[in-house]
């Protein structure tokens, strides 16, 4: 099975060299043990496991392209006059940051390509983290022992957005300045300390001359260091826990079925890195992005209709737009900007719920076992419905950031679009919840019927007695296993404790448990299937 590094040297020279080199390294590093331990580690195969890989690989692409950009970028807000080849900007006063970004675009060969690679890779990075999170959520991969890794992944998602925002602000063009202006307004809305924090952040008044240098430090040093640290932790946990797998014949809680790291996974995952990289470069070479020369250097005054943040900040910007009018109060001689605090609070609650969801569900089910087999989303209807509601809530916030674009493109009134989105923000998740839950239960019923009676063959047979019956095609045991191999949970029965009391906590838990598991489709048992087999 496992090939250690100290094999007997073969006859030809090249393998003798390999073995000598391996021995040389092992004598100094003890790496043979690592190869023996991890070289044939098994990974299960499924397309959805690639989403996390896309996130990792696009991050590597970001590091590579970002390193190239740092060689030419000047993170300074010193006023200069642009003298480069781009005619419309010639002689215009701008910061060194903007001028050097223009130079990267127009005076460095391949510079524009690298800028575009970096930006597209960043968009893909956040997108793939989001999809990866959704995959983990809907398949229940966050259950014990992986709850902490969910939290680490969540931190990575926040870090990725922070990386995105700090990077967006570096070129010091009109759009990035406007983004910072919005951040300034939000920070100022924080009670008691907001004004002072904004003052510290910008090193004086907005925009000041410090912010680009500070964001640059965050963007290329502090945040990447944190991302790398958390990615390392995240992957260390994946190794410790071993990968989850989808339920299927031969797959149990005690094993991992798949392919070994060497050679198959090395080839597939290594190849996939190049595919992700290649797709990013392909997009970057064909589709331009963030044409800062069209916006001009930052100036607090110019018109910027239809400005859009990058997609991952859209949800926050959209929430700012969806706030009902007039939410600002002046109490005790101080200003309370609820029109900013309310979105911050709602978004805060939303992301905290996302972060602690594994612990909530563990408390509701009371399940303390380890889970290495994934759920099919239909087999956890309430969780899937909660996820659908959350996705809808996020999507409405995100759509809010494009309310003006939607209004102009679809010839609607802007007020109408905003009012519709405000209503959807509350109704959408509710509708999504019930739809998703009903669809899940319907699919479970269909699975159950197929498991019990097999497939409808469409053949009608007349029995000798004259009765007509439809012939059902029985399932193979492998197919059947995929339909019936899930666990269901019964709602928690309220029982008095040793002192004969029912605590409030228990009542709450029972309530949640009913909410989760009242409607459920029980997997058919052997006996039922035998009876169902006509």
């Amino acid at each position, binding site marked *: 099975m496992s090939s250690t590094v100290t094999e007997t040297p073969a006859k030809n020279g090249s393998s003798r060299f390999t073995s000598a080199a391996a021995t040389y390294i092992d004598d100094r590093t003890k790496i043979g043990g690592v190869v023996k331990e991890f070289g044939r580690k098994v990974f299960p195969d499924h397309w959805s496991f690639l989403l996390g890989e896309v996130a990792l690989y696009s991050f590597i692409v970001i590091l590579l392209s970002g390193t190239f950009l740092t060689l030419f970028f000047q993170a300074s807000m010193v006023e200069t006059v642009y003298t480069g080849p781009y005619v419309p900007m010639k002689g215009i006063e701008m910061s060194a940051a903007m001028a050097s970004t223009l130079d990267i675009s127009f005076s460095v060969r391949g510079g524009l390509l690298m800028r575009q690679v970096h930006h597209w890779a960043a968009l893909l990075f956040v997108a793939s983290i989001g999809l990866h999170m959704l995959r983990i959520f809907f398949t229940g991969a966050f259950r014990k022992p992986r709850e902490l890794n969910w939290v680490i992944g969540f931190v990575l998602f926040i870090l990725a957005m922070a990386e995105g925002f700090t990077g967006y602000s570096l070129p010091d063009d009109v759009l990035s300045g406007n983004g910072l202006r919005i951040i300034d307004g939000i920070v*100022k809305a924080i009670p008691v300390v907001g004004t002072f924090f*904004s003052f510290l952040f910008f090193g004086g008044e907005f925009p000041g001359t410090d912010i680009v240098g500070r964001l640059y430090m965050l963007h290329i040093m502090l945040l990447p260091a944190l991302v790398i640290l958390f990615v390392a932790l995240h992957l260390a946990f994946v190794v410790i826990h071993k990968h989850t797998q989808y339920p299927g014949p031969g797959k149990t809680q005690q094993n991992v079925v798949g392919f070994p790291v060497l050679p198959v996974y090395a080839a*597939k995952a290594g190849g996939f890195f190049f595919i992700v990289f290649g797709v990013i470069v392909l997009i970057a070479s064909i589709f331009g992005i963030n044409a800062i020369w069209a916006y001009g250097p930052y100036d607090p005054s*110019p018109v910027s209709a239809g400005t859009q943040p990058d997609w991952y900040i859209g949800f926050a910007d959209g929430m700012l737009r969806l706030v009902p009018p007039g939410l600002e109060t002046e109490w005790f001689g101080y200003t309370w900007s609820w029109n900013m605090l309310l979105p911050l609070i709602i978004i805060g609650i939303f992301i905290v719920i996302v972060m602690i969801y594994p612990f909530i569900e563990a408390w509701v089910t009371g399940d303390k076992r380890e889970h290495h087999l994934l759920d099919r989303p239909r087999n956890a209807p309430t969780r899937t419905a909660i996820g659908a509601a959350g996705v809808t809530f996020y999507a409405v916030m995100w759509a809010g950031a494009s309310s003006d674009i939607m209004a102009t493109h679809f010839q609607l009134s802007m007020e109408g679009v905003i009012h519709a989105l405000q209503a959807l923000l509350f109704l959408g998740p509710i509708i999504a919840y019930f739809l998703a839950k009903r669809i899940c239960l319907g699919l479970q019923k269909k699975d159950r019927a197929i498991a019990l009676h097999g497939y409808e063959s469409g053949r009608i047979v007349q029995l000798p007695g004259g009765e007509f019956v439809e012939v059902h095609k029985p399932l193979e045991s492998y197919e059947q296993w995929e339909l019936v191999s899930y666990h269901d949970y019964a709602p928690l029965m309220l029982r008095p404790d040793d002192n004969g009391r029912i605590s409030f906590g228990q009542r709450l838990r029972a309530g949640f448990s009913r909410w989760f598991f009242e409607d459920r489709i029980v997997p058919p048992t*052997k006996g039922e299937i035998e009876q169902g087999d006509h």
Partner: protein
Amino acid sequence: MAEEAKNSGGDAVVAAQSHDVDVASAGTAVISSDAVQNPGLPPHRKRVTDLDPQKAKRQERVVYSLFYISIAGSLGAVLAYMFFPIETGEMMAIRLHTLFVGLGMALALLAVGIGAVHWGKALMADHESIDMRHPVPSDEETMQAAADVFTVSNEESGFSRRSLVRNSLLGALIAFPLPGITLLRGLAPQDQDPVELAKHTMWTKGMRLARDPSGVPIKASEVTIGSAFHVIPETLNHHDFEHLNAEERGGSENFLDAKAKAIVLLMRLDQSELNELPERESWSYDGIVAYSKVCTHVGCPVALYEQHTHHLLCPCHQSQFDVSEHAKVIFGPAKRPLPQLPITVDEEGYLVAQSDFHEPVGPSYWERLK
């Protein structure tokens, strides 16, 4: 191995203590005794490349051809780098350079990636392997040993026993970051007060209203009904700004800081359509009104003026202000009307400010009323 995979499709993971059947609580999960049994791994299906050496040969050719294509792509990207110069500065040259260098790189990456994956899928051994999992928690002995380490080191150090030593250490550790946090006060100038700064702009009595960005002063006669001007103070240009003192700069150090507070919109409405507050009737001149251009929501420039409806629209979050109703908010997240700049004309007929704004411009902040 396959036999091991067949046993118990159940959820009960082997407990950490194998000698002791102490399986973790399943909570409210229903464990059926009559559950269907896991049928075990389905039989392995061979691929065509396993059955037909001809086909395997062909796939081998596909893989190494892809690797050669990748080399060609890499070289192509280098050639494109050399033969598509951008030094002319023309947009077309830059577009072509980006396109061909990028396509070369993309071809190189995609070909090597697809080749490697195809090699893995079509030619490498594809028998499914099975690893057994071990429970994540450490076994009893290890846990005990770890606990012992802490117990022993606690005894040897007296960490629990010597409470005064321990608590004073904790105090010291809590206190030690404080100087570091204090140093961060230096992120902003020590001698300025943000609340004070926010109250003043460059507008002063007699300051002429000039066009943004050219700086040409505006005559009242030039402002026709229905027109709108983007306005800055006359001295807000790079040349003059150098020579202004702190007060003349509205307290701001930098050009853009001053501009971020001083930008103004100027509009002229028909007097019959202009509903002014009685105390502000002297703030306008012949139907010409001037308002701060900084949105009271989060500070974007409120730059879109619809002359038919007299509405100002902020492009960032769609707050709308009605100029004919002293710029009060009629839609969107903003709460306060835009601050109005009192204006009049000087003897040469140029529009001038009567004074600075009477309230802080821009987004709300905690000490706004101070």
